[in-house]
């Protein structure tokens, strides 16, 4: 059988980072082909290349056996390739039928509304879904929006539909319906590329599974020849380089932060742990496991709605970031650009931002000399590479920006420090430095909570690992018993398939 879509030796780099290396992939007509891989394995880049958002640096794409160049999403659509995403792409102001036909050029120039609604209705029914096609898209649930996107693809007669983490934000009931839709598409001869972290879904729906790791193709097997263990091994199989694994937990002091059954309605629930002075607890899990939401609850940005938090023996209800800061909790965000730093401002102003109160002198004026001295101290201590603390933060490298953000929070003298993806997007050298800073802080008695999707990092830093899956606590593992396989297994819900 001629593959409906084939990638041959496709490579893609972004500046210095290679996202895909000699990727080979072959999709047969009418199959459900699952693609799995760890966070950062190159799945997103792969999708973007198949949908014409990115162009490969080298290698070729074949559709129905013919080499095709896909310079834009428009061209990919014309070649019969469409994608739906975790976050659906609908037009909130248009109604369902219009959303379905918005980019359909085969329908002539004039709108015939009656016909439009009938046809939209027909397509939606083919998917086995009930949905009023006259409703505005703004009121639809996530699952309904996805249905609209799938219907849009169907109306264009696509041959290949890519589903990128389609179930990440769906309820169990909605997941079942989506899997049914995927099977219905297959019946119609549409090839479905199914990308998911959830192994149970893959076993339910896929015909073949491809594992990718570090931008490379590792294996493609029929689902019957695949075991969960084998798949997980292929996913994490990389040699653990750069960081040594931690062998045993550091000695640490008395319990400082105690969290019992913490939850936020509809987001996460049942999170319980104790965090001691000098201890590093890592929150591991897949993208969408709601780890950041736990941090946001502890920092009062999106407060918890259930459960108890005890800090140094006192029950606290944290509802605002200001309150969290006063209690000695600091949160170093994963999103430096949006939530972390004021990019056009100089280094010193960013560092002093959260502790300006200390620098106020007569008439409420800021003591500029003390402010500069404060910044200089951190520049030396954390080795921020910049000639001058007056340099604009936006001009620094990612690793140095991370250090500036860290300095800002260190100056608030926190007792509990929460790091969200502390080394995302920074190079290996800076990564090791940030790790050392985190270890030093713990040694000085700070209680540290680290959210990380980077498993080697988790294993290098943590005293204990709390694994989350779909908003719930999947396990709390002491470092001595932790391994990549164990963590991935817990995070992906391995072993639950037979139970489900």
């Amino acid at each position, binding site marked *: 059988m001629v593959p409906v879509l084939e990638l041959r030796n496709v490579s893609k780099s972004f500046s210095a980072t290679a996202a895909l290396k000699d990727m080979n992939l072959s999709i047969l007509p009418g199959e459900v082909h699952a693609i799995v891989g760890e966070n950062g394995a190159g799945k997103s880049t792969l999708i973007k290349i198949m*949908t014409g958002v990115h162009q490969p640096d080298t290698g070729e794409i074949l559709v129905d056996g013919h080499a095709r160049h896909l310079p834009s999403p*428009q061209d990919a659509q014309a070649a019969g390739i469409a994608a739906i995403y975790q976050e659906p792409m609908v*037009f*909130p102001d248009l109604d369902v039928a219009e959303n379905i036909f*918005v980019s359909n050029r085969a329908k002539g120039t004039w709108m015939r509304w009656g016909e439009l609604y009938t046809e939209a209705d027909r397509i939606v029914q083919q998917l086995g879904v009930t949905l009023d096609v006259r409703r505005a898209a703004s009121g639809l649930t996530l699952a309904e929006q996805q249905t609209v996107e799938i219907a849009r693809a169907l109306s264009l007669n696509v041959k290949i539909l890519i589903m990128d983490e389609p179930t990440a934000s769906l309820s169990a009931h909605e997941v079942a319906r989506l899997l049914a839709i995927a099977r219905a598409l297959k019946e119609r001869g549409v090839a479905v590329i199914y990308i998911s972290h959830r192994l149970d879904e893959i076993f339910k729906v896929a015909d073949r599974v491809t594992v990718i790791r570090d931008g490379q193709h590792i294996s493609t097997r029929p689902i019957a020849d695949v075991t969960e263990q084998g798949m997980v091994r292929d996913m994490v199989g990389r040699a653990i380089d750069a960081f040594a694994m931690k062998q045993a937990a550091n000695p640490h002091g008395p319990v400082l932060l105690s969290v019992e059954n913490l939850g936020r309605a509809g987001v996460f629930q049942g999170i319980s742990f104790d965090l001691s002075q000098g201890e590093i607890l890592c929150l591991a899990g897949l993208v969408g496991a709601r780890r950041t939401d736990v941090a946001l609850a502890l920092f009062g940005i999106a407060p918890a709605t259930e459960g108890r938090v005890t800090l140094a023996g006192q029950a606290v209800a944290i509802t605002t970031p200001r309150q969290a800061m006063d209690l000695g909790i600091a949160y170093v965000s994963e999103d430096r650009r949006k939530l972390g730093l004021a990019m056009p401002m100089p280094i010193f102003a960013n560092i002093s931002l959260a502790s300006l109160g200390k620098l106020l002198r007569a008439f409420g004026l800021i003591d500029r000399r003390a402010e500069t001295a404060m910044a200089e101290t951190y520049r030396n201590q954390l080795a921020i590479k910049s000639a001058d603390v007056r340099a604009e933060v936006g001009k620094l490298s990612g690793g140095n920006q991370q250090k500036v953000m860290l300095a800002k929070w260190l100056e608030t003298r926190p007792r509990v420090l929460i790091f969200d993806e502390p080394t995302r997007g920074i190079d290996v050298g800076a990564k090791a430095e940030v790790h050392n800073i985190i270890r030093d802080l713990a040694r000085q008695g700070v209680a540290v909570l680290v959210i990380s999707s980077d498993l080697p990092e988790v294993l290098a830093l943590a005293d204990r690992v709390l694994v989350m899956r779909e908003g719930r606590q999947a396990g709390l593992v002491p470092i001595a018993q932790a391994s990549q396989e164990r963590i991935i297994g817990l995070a992906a819900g391995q072993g639950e398939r037979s139970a489900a």
Partner: protein
Amino acid sequence: MIRALHPQTLRLIALGLALLAVVLFFSTQIDNYLSPRMFNRISTSAAVVLPVAVGQAIVVITRNIDLSMGSIMGVVAYMVGEALVLWPGLNPALVILMAMGLGAIAGSINGILVAWGRVPSIIVTLGTLALFRTFLVEHGNARTITADALPRWLVDLPQMSLLSLGGLDLRVTVALALAACLIVGLALSRLRPARKFYAVGSNPDAALMAGINSARVVFLAFVISGALAGLGGFIFLAKFGNITVVAGMGFELKAVAAVVVGGVSIMGGSGTMLGVLIGTVLVDTIDNSLTRLPWLSEFWRDALLGILIMAAVTVDTLASRSLNRLKRRGGE
């Protein structure tokens, strides 16, 4: 009951009621307000604003804004006037085409900079607002085009009626403006490619993913808005006859007010031409009637326009928020 109606329909009904209330209020304040004379006065005045508002609406629907429309109007009115002074024999249809063509050229400058230059439209059109005006001042060299230099048909045009019912005239200029509004309205609701204006304004990322060429759509919106500003310029020329270098100044504010009051979302993606029509009439009725109030200073009219824009957006935001809350409660 309220839930069953589409929010757009609800908005139009509210708008109609507001217009009614305004007319009733002024009829108690001003003698002889509900007269054919007043109707003709307001309709001919609104005819100048309407094409500009329609053009503005298209741009706003794509989540942009065109602040240069008043300047484009001025340039077009002046240059078309000049052309008619030079060649008084020009065919009227050709003159209108020329006005719209000139406007489209100016609009395409905005369009290129916004669509492909990726400069925010508010900056681009704020720049061209000043640029086009300065061009006019330089070009005009302080000369005024006067009505007696213009051909007879143009000077008489504002008084010409297509039909008349008991003193209520449908003037040619009004018909022209209404035609523009109707054509654009039909196109936006019936012409498939025109739906892309809504798509781009509603969710630019999704538009890209759906294979829509957003840049081309935005460019086109500015060209059309320029052309309609040109049509507004022509009607302005016909109505006033005397054209100085300040012609059309401030019309961008009137157009934005009409569009926003007419229920076009300033965040793009929604709005109807019927709304824009009622919005224009409402804004212009208030504007014209206030001059008749002896106790109100002339200068307050601009301030009132500003207040009207802010009030419309505030009411709209509050209303849609509570409507959503109502819906959500109904859904549970």
